[in-house]
């Protein structure tokens, strides 16, 4: 595809359920980022992948959050035992190499609502 895609676009779940969010980066982009954006706020860094490895997981807010990337392509962000404070838009971005100053191309996000 021409850009970064994310699915689902919207997800409503009940507190305590697990959710899985998917990101398809731009083909050939080796770096992939996940961010969380709460309503009316800026972006909160969650995790960064270079290829299939995650050298920086420092932003994951708790052990309920995990992410993986396979084949240097698709990434999934999993949130276990969701809580109401997990409600936010989850944005994925990819960049060509992850090197200094590289442009990040963002997907449209997944809006997660935990009831």
């Amino acid at each position, binding site marked *: 595809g021409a850009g970064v895609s994310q699915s689902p676009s919207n997800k409503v779940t009940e507190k305590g359920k697990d959710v899985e969010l998917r990101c398809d980066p731009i083909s050939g982009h080796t770096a992939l980022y996940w*961010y969380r954006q709460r309503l009316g*706020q800026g972006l909160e860094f969650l995790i960064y992948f270079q290829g299939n490895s995650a050298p920086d997981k420092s932003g994951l807010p708790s052990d309920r959050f995990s992410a993986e990337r396979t084949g240097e392509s698709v990434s999934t962000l999993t949130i276990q035992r969701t809580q109401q404070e997990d409600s936010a838009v989850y944005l994925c971005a990819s960049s060509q190499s992850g090197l200094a100053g590289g442009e990040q191309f963002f997907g449209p996000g997944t809006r997660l609502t935990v009831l």
Partner: protein
Amino acid sequence: TQLLEQSPQFLSIQEGENLTVYCNSSSVFSSLQWYRQEPGEGPVLLVTVVTGGEVKKLKRLTFQFGDARKDSSLHITAAQPGDTGLYLCAGRENYGQNFVFGPGTRLSVLP
């Protein structure tokens, strides 16, 4: 982790007015980016600045990186309704891989 502050938090102006928004930190950045985000979409990169004192122009938008690389400004001349959106700055610390985002300035340009 460096903290980025942006001001003002909200700005509502009439079409044709000029405006400046600011991005500030107490620490030095190796580079800084500005993004614009429209409702329901991801942020889109506007510019990257890397040299202290650097000025870049993008049509009616002028970006400046502070001499000490701790702050940046975005000036919009003759704002148009299409400029409406959330303006985010993002700083990269110590040539690392990640950018730290500020909370954004939400701009509304009224026709």
